[in-house]
């Protein structure tokens, strides 16, 4: 490996536990092994660990819901330390929703408890013969059958039952609900009640393996390499993490973005027909109204200085959903709110509570519901199909639809229970022409809360995202929102490509460390981000080194996608953005331009050192990144979902 060998591994590695568990669910065997210091240095943790494991150990072309899929739990070197937002974990597998690299990141108390139990990574293979949950109780690892005790239960009840059973209210529990059990392609994993590993159907992968839950607790302390220096820096970071750099996440929370992105014509409404909404302009549906009228408490994940989790409460006097508590962020204000044309807050809360408890991703769920609302509006689905009306702006019927979608029941469940892409295909098979056009997804993953009509840079950033439509792989929406480049134009393709690459490499490091993207602004500079890693682990990295590894991690997961059959055509936003313009707002009359988009896409590939035609990393790039082991193995296995 080219540059990595120059960074010396200390004799005693701190931060990392270096413990990997291999769980063969088919025969119930659990084996423990040591992760080498070199592996830690080269792949950092979380995303990086899993990118390497999935490349090496997952047979190309396998059915993601078969026992052949490999399911990885991983965290980095930081959990339980007081680096802000250190208690994060990731889950990874071939995604049943996209057929490509699947990943989802969550936090709560799981990373910290798993680390104190002494775990760094768990790799699951096979399928259990009956429903089980896995326990990691310090050095005690075992699988416990749960068909009669937990199977069929919601995520919240599962967590309560397991905490009661262990008589430990701080037991960290990752659970799937009935949706994951029935292998809904948008099935999520819920932990600590309000935190989800939501995206790319990781709950369905657990369901396919008959794995209902994982629970962790531990009593091992974590030492750091340079305690005095670390403590000084950590105190500073905690202070900054509670300062202006994160105020938008703390005060109104991410829903503050509703107003600001609405002003730019970037906040999707009515299934991305428009990017502005009068309910936002008139103050009905904003971060301010949400906080003033509904939010009762802000809660933090373990070791987080920000506390972004805004808990809303529906009063006891509400006729439909009295005394309901729900965890709210901007994404679900979009998915079950503006995109469904719904400005009734309690309806939004009820829908998200159903998703979190019964176990689907609330972004994918809401975007799928918005697709259904638009199809209803166009007459492509009807009251006869559903059994009830579902126009934009529905309230109780939207809740009814959501519950059926999650549980796979009725027309809503049968057609929409696996997300937008499959819903489109199913409807077209029934002769509902062009239904797929209204599914707002990229690579099969439903879109987050940005409308791309007037966002030429983010159209590329979101298009190339490894896991499908996502704002958290590179955050390139900022390039459009801040006006770094002309958001309606297509100039400077290489400069834009470089800007997206720089963000994406940084985000890959963040997802490998794993820390929260809300703290990306608390570090003075790149060098400080590298320094904190050195103070914890003792590995003397530079920022140049660490971002070089970020580049390698992105490229390796891109190679995974290519091996599974992804092509340039998959790096493309939905047709709507190219064909239908907004009728109002700042992006009125604007559509994305296909030629311009393709030019920018090539610019991104060029910046990455990937072939500008195909997007396949060149051998030279692979060598530069220490990915020599990939060379000659990029022949597509054709496992991508059609």
């Amino acid at each position, binding site marked *: 490996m080219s540059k990595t060998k120059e960074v010396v591994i200390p004799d005693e590695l701190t931060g990392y536990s270096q413990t990997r568990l291999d769980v063969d669910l088919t025969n119930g065997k659990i084996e423990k092994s040591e992760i080498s210091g070199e592996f830690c240095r080269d792949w950092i943790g979380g995303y990086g660990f899993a990118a390497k494991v999935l490349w090496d150990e997952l047979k190309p072309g396998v059915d993601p819901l078969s026992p052949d899929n490999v399911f990885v739990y991983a965290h980095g070197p930081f959990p*339980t*330390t*007081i680096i*802000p937002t250190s208690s994060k974990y990731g889950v990874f597998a071939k995604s049943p929703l996209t057929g490509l690299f699947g990943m989802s990141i969550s936090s709560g*108390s799981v990373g*910290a408890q798993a680390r*104190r139990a002494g775990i760094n990574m768990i790799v699951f293979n096979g399928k259990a013969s009956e429903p089980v949950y896995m326990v990691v109780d310090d050095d005690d690892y075992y699988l416990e059958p749960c068909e009669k005790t937990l199977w069929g239960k919601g995520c919240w009840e599962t967590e309560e039952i397991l905490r009661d059973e262990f008589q430990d*209210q701080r037991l960290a529990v990752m659970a799937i609900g009935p949706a994951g059990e029935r292998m809904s392609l948008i099935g999520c994993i819920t932990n600590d*009640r*309000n935190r989800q590993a939501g995206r790319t159907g990781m709950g369905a992968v657990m369901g396919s393996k008959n794995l209902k839950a994982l629970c962790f607790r531990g*009593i*091992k*302390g*974590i*030492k*750091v390499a340079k*305690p*005095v220096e670390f*403590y000084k820096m*950590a*105190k500073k970071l*905690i*202070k900054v*993490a*509670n300062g202006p750099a994160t105020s938008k996440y703390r005060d109104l929370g991410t829903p503050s973005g509703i107003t600001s992105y609405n002003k730019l014509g970037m906040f999707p409404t009515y299934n991305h027909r428009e990017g502005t909404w009068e309910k936002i302009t008139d103050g009905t549906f904003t971060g301010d109204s949400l906080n003033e009228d509904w939010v*009762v*408490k*802000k*809660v*933090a*994940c*373990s*070791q*987080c*200085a*920000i*506390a972004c989790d805004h*808990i809303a*409460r529906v009063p006891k006097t509400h006729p439909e959903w009295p005394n309901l*508590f729900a965890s709210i962020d901007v994404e679900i204000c979009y998915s079950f709110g503006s995109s469904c044309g719904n400005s009734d807050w309690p309806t939004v809360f009820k829908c998200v509570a159903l998703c979190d408890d019964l176990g689907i991703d609330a972004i994918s769920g809401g975007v799928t519901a918005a697709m259904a609302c638009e199809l209803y509006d166009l007459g492509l689905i009807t009251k006869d199909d559903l059994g009830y009306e579902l126009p934009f702006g529905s309230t109780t019927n939207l809740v009814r639809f959501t519950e059926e979608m999650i549980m796979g029941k009725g027309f809503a469940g049968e057609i929409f229970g696996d997300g937008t892409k499959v819903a489109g295909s199913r409807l077209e098979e029934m002769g509902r022409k062009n239904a797929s056009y209204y599914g707002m997804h990229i690579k099969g993953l439903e879109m987050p809360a940005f409308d791309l009509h007037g966002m030429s840079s983010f159209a590329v950033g979101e298009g190339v995202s490894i896991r499908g439509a996502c704002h958290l792989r590179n955050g390139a929406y900022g390039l459009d929102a801040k006006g770094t480049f002309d958001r309606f134009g297509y100039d400077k393709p290489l400069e834009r490509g470089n800007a997206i690459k720089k963000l994406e490499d940084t985000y890959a490091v963040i997802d490998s460390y794993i820390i929260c993207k809300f703290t990306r602004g608390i570090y003075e500079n790149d060098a400080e981000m590298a320094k904190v890693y050195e103070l914890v682990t003792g590995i003397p990295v530079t920022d140049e080194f660490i971002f070089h590894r970020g580049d390698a991690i992105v490229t390796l997961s891109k190679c995974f996608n290519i091996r599974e059959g992804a092509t340039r055509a998959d790096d493309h936003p939905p047709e709507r953005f190219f064909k239908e313009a907004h009728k109002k707002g700042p992006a009125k009359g604007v559509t994305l331009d296909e030629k311009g988009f393709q030019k920018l896409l090539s610019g991104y590939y060029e910046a990455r050192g990937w072939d500008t035609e195909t997007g396949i990393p060149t051998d030279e790039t692979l060598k530069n990144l220490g990915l020599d082991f990939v060379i000659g193995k990029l022949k597509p296995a054709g496992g991508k979902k059609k």
Partner: protein
Amino acid sequence: MSAKKKRIHQFIVVDADKCTGCETCESVCSFVHDGEFNPIKSRIHRVRIEPILNIALACQKCEDAPCIRACPEKALDKNEDGSIIVDEDKCNGCGFCVRACDFGVITLHLDTQKALVCDLCESMREEFIDPEVGKKEPQCIVVCPKEAIALKNVEQIGEETRIEAVKRLFADQLADLK
């Protein structure tokens, strides 16, 4: 009771409205005392009751402390600040103090099995003292991101409560003054 024990003592008070349950206080407590992050070795304890109640508890410095009375080895006493001091030579880890505490804030240290209780960082490691401060101070208060933790005595708490009560009772008059 001796004269020194009649001083009004300060103890750790956590504001449940501000506390987000982030556990940073627990992690730093074990770190400055033991050099490792481990909430199970903390002298302050976060409690979360879903969905919204969060708080942390530490020694309340009870006037007639049940833990001291319960100890069969006479290993516990109070110092000048009213903090519970554990004589580790006498403490045999029997846990009677743990059972006697009304707040669950005295535990046994995981490694030593000696009674573990908040001493306002009197026993924190010297190397973690902030050079700009130059003395030991409760580190949970220093790191709490929400400034939810404070050192108060009962008289201060009473005074704050009285002021809040008066603000409620005379809200109209106060509004009129603005």
